[in-house]
């Protein structure tokens, strides 16, 4: 077991945000936590990331990709990655893989939003983490850029040998279905797990037109809209 959440309940003041969340994350899992805005999914991610006695963690290190790139504006692309990994060769290699080889000495304000998010992904992967957290990393991007970026990330994940698991928070159903090995949906007030589904299609073969994915998409849309 990589991460075990046992009956987690979380309050903000006297308001219950999360109630009785139990979840087992096994080695090799890619868990997508889906839910609508304000349902507490980022809170859940932060609880996993930080320390909560309801959560047992069985990994040494993690890294994270945020919704905003959170790059340092005064450092160029390469420096933003070497800042965390201290290894220029490794940083260059990963930046080449995310197709940023020609932009190493640009500063963040000189590149597009999608490119910034690729830098942010490269920064997270350069740490060679055991667990990778993604907090709505594609939400601010256009559909086409988003789908391409997910494909790129899926390919990158296979390169990181240390990686044991991925926890991915999003409100976008398609994003979740293209990447996750298991989807859970948070719903209700306070939020509980209302839906769980394993997806056994290999990462490289995921396609938005896939019948199986469309079926799951419909089920989750129904939960969201009801």
């Amino acid at each position, binding site marked *: 077991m990589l991460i075990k959440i046992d009956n987690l309940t979380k309050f903000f003041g006297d308001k219950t945000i999360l109630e009785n969340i139990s979840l087992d994350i096994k080695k090799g899992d890619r868990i997508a936590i889906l839910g609508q805005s304000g349902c507490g999914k980022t809170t859940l991610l932060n609880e996993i990331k930080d320390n909560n006695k309801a959560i047992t963690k069985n990994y040494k*290190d993690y890294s*994270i990709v945020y919704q*905003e790139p959170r790059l340092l504006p*005064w450092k160029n692309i390469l420096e933003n990655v070497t800042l965390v990994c201290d290894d220029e060769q490794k940083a260059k290699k990963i930046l080449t893989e995310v197709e940023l080889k020609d932009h190493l000495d640009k500063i963040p*304000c000189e590149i597009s939003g999608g490119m*910034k998010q690729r830098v942010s992904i490269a920064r997270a992967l350069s*740490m060679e983490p055991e667990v990778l957290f993604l907090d709505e990393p594609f939400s601010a991007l256009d559909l086409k850029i988003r789908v391409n970026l997910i494909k790129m990330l899926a390919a990158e994940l296979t390169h990181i040998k240390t990686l044991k698991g991925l926890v991915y928070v999003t409100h976008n159903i398609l994003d979740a279905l293209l990447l996750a090995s298991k989807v859970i949906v948070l719903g209700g007030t306070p939020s509980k797990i209302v839906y769980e589904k394993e997806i056994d299609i290999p990462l490289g073969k995921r396609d938005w037109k896939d019948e199986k994915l469309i079926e799951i998409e419909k089920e989750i849309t129904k939960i969201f809209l009801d």
Partner: protein
Amino acid sequence: MTLTYFINKILNISNYLVGVTLLLVAWSYLATIYPPAIIPSLGSIYDATINIYQNEMIMSEIGYTVYRVFASSIISVIVGVTLGILCGVIEPLNKAITPLAIIFENVPPIGWMVLTIMWFGIGDIPSIVVGVISAVPIIFFYIVSSVQNINPKTFEMAKDFKLSKMKILTSIYIPSIMPSIAASLSTGIGLSWRVVVMAEALSAYDGIGQKLWGNYMYGDTPAVYSYIFIIALLGLAMEYLVAHPIKNKIEKRYMRNVNKNR
């Protein structure tokens, strides 16, 4: 098109000259009404300026003053920035220091001048110290607020990626407050200039402020006015030849669309 361009250019420059011309005209008129000991004629001020330039060791006097201004600005920036970063990071320290800074800020420079002459005697030190004490609180408040305004998400990133304390200082704190350091350097030089020249009048044996005061004591009114004129010109030079270029350079490097990238 080029002709209208030049006409516009000349009109544009002439706008700037209107105020100065009016001042000179008014001055010439007033000089005919009041005695020369109050308002000397423009001609006598001009002669006094030439005389100062030719006969007095004006360059070495300016040198003393400029040395004091730079010493005081550099010390102010070092003290103000260091204290500002520490207090921006450590809230209890901030609470302890802020009242002191407010008190220091509200004692007028003349008060510090009397004290520093008592403590250090007449010489270089009083004017430098008065400059430092006047500038440090302002720089301090600048830096504290800019440290406190750094986006907390940047620190969350630093924590998630386990950046060392040293990296957080050199890669996040210092670059984030660079624009404020630039602004405080510019403020520091400007303020030091005014305060040091004033302090020199009473607390130094040399320097341009002392020459101004000395000429007043001798009753040489045209020389007093020409020293004021020289002081104003030098102040402008400090502002536009020293403070602004430094500020622009730093801002160009550190303020390029900073907010877009958070």
